[in-house]
């Protein structure tokens, strides 16, 4: 016991190589900014001297920065901090690279699509329009109706399948087969989903059917696995204690699921379903196959085809025209439709967040 006390005392008072002191020198808070300024300044000087472009300046500056800041940190702060600073730089770099396409796409679409926006663009269709003029209302309505019908088909099926998998399947043979099939379904190319709908309605209606609800069915083939997967994950997150709490009150299983389990997971389920809608709203290939193209408004999904925004973008961007100014108008219309589509999808994503927050259980604190 006395030995132990002695040892504690010595480690506390004298410098021990195994126990470094608690304080160490630190780089000033502005060190990254100073290093960045010097790095890109140096790189700029080299770039000017050798006649490089902006890309060379940025890349070389980045490389100098990546070496200089950790080196400075290593000299002053030690190895662990130096590694931390280097990894921080790499993480920020990958973040910036990941953001680049997003910013570039948004910027291009807004720049080229915004000029197309006008009252006429949102209030009229393409019936009787040759080249210039008209709007895309028919495609907005078509996208809305086809995705809405697809949602009405796939959300109930998806939620019920997930309820079976989590609450009843309990990893039995049937649920394992189902999970495997859902995984396979997730990987179905959208054009194959379109071919499925096309084949189905060819059998029912004869060759080359044009039916908007067929587009909804093709989209729901793509949506169902997403809804099943997200709902399954959300239901798994509901603690078993809540189920047992309900059972212990003499509540039957089906009421426990509908009144306790699903409400508890509702925020996540709604978010997952909304994201699935956003995911399929931009599908082109299956709709091209079965819903076709149309120049006027059709609000009845069971009667003929429907124009949708992605198909409109595709056809406007690829079809030829008698005069060059028509081509310009068609391209502008395509960019405008792309902007509308992006706004719809982003709106749905925001809606998913709001709805998810609204339905999630509250603590009241």
């Amino acid at each position, binding site marked *: 016991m006395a030995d132990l006390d002695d040892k504690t005392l010595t480690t506390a008072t004298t410098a021990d190589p195994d126990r470094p002191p608690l304080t160490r020198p630190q780089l000033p808070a502005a060190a990254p900014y100073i290093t960045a300024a010097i790095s890109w300044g140096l790189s700029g000087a080299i770039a000017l001297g050798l006649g490089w472009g902006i890309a060379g300046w940025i890349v070389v500056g980045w490389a100098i920065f990546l070496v200089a800041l950790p080196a400075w940190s290593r000299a002053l702060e030690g190895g662990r901090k130096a590694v931390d600073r280097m990894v921080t730089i790499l993480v920020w770099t990958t973040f910036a690279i990941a953001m680049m396409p997003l910013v570039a796409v948004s910027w291009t679409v807004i720049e080229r699509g915004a000029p197309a926006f006008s009252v006429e663009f949102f209030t009229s269709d393409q019936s009787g329009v040759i080249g210039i003029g008209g709007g895309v209302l028919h495609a907005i309505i078509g996208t809305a109706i086809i995705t809405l019908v697809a949602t009405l088909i796939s959300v109930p099926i998806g939620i019920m399948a997930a309820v079976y998998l989590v609450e009843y399947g*309990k990893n039995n043979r049937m649920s394992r087969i189902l999970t495997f099939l859902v995984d396979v379904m997730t990987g179905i190319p959208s054009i194959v989903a379109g071919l499925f709908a096309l084949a189905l309605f060819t059998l029912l209606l004869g060759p080359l059917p044009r039916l908007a609800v067929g587009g909804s069915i093709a989209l729901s083939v793509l949506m169902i696995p997403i809804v099943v997967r997200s709902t399954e994950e959300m239901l798994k997150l509901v*603690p078993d*204690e*809540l*189920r*047992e*709490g*309900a*059972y*212990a*009150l*003499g*509540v*039957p299983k089906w*009421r*426990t699921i509908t*009144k*306790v389990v699903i*409400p*508890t997971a*509702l925020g996540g389920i709604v978010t997952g379903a909304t994201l699935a809608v956003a995911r399929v709203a931009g599908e082109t290939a299956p709709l091209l196959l079965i819903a076709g193209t149309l120049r006027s408004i059709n609000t009845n999904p069971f009667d003929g085809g429907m124009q949708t925004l992605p198909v409109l973008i595709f056809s406007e961007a690829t079809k030829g025209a008698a005069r060059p100014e028509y081509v310009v108008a068609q391209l502008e219309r395509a960019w405008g439709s792309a902007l509308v589509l992006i706004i719809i999808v982003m709106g749905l994503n925001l809606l998913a967040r709001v709805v998810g927050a609204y339905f999630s*259980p*509250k*603590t*009241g*604190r």
Partner: protein
Amino acid sequence: MAKSIDVSDLNIYYGDFLAVEGVNMTVKARSVTAFIGPSGCGKSTVLRSLNRMHEVIPGARVEGKVVVDGQSLYDPSVDPVAVRRQIGMVFQRPNPFPTMSIYDNVLAGKKLNAKRMSKSDADALVEKSLRGANLWNEVKDRLGKPGMGLSGGQQQRLCIARAIAVEPDVLLMDEPCSALDPISTSAIEDLIHELKSDYTIVIVTHNMQQAARVSDETGFFNLKATGQPGRLVEFNPTKKMFTNPENEATESYISGRFG
């Protein structure tokens, strides 16, 4: 209204694994029965088999007889849902329903079963249950707030209120105080004393002082040996158990010499 429970030759399995073997006992009506014993010896498992909560776990099954007032619970014609309406349960960790207010949590047993009741009846039941659980004065001004916003001890008393709101005959408690501080524990022990006049109570506890304080009879569970199923070693009035136990293992467990 309170009922006695007769358990005979009860074997409890998880799949092929025999967890508890050969339990025989009689739980008296309007009394508190405590189960004590080291972890993993099957106290909670036996408790859960008394209201058919055991079979909720996939693969779990029971052999033997549990008879409540002459009715065998494991008879094929018995509906487990009906059993659980008569035999309520409070769990180790408080589990109020997160989507419901305090008010709705108390009424959960009625609402989830779609029982229609007038607003005044519902209000009266909520007040009676919360008073019964010693929680009314703390929450009467915020009945509309979420049940998850309460402290751990309050949540546990809310769960007790929820359990007694369905007016069961028997109340099973699985270590109801293990997550609570001494003050909340004392509130719940007082509550158990009060509830005893109306209900048959079975409580699992790791706290031997608690068993001595609240219970009339005590059952001591232990493993036969490591890897062997658990069994009921001794079942006697609490006074006898804590002063003059029949079994040597009981004595060494109670006196802290093992376990």
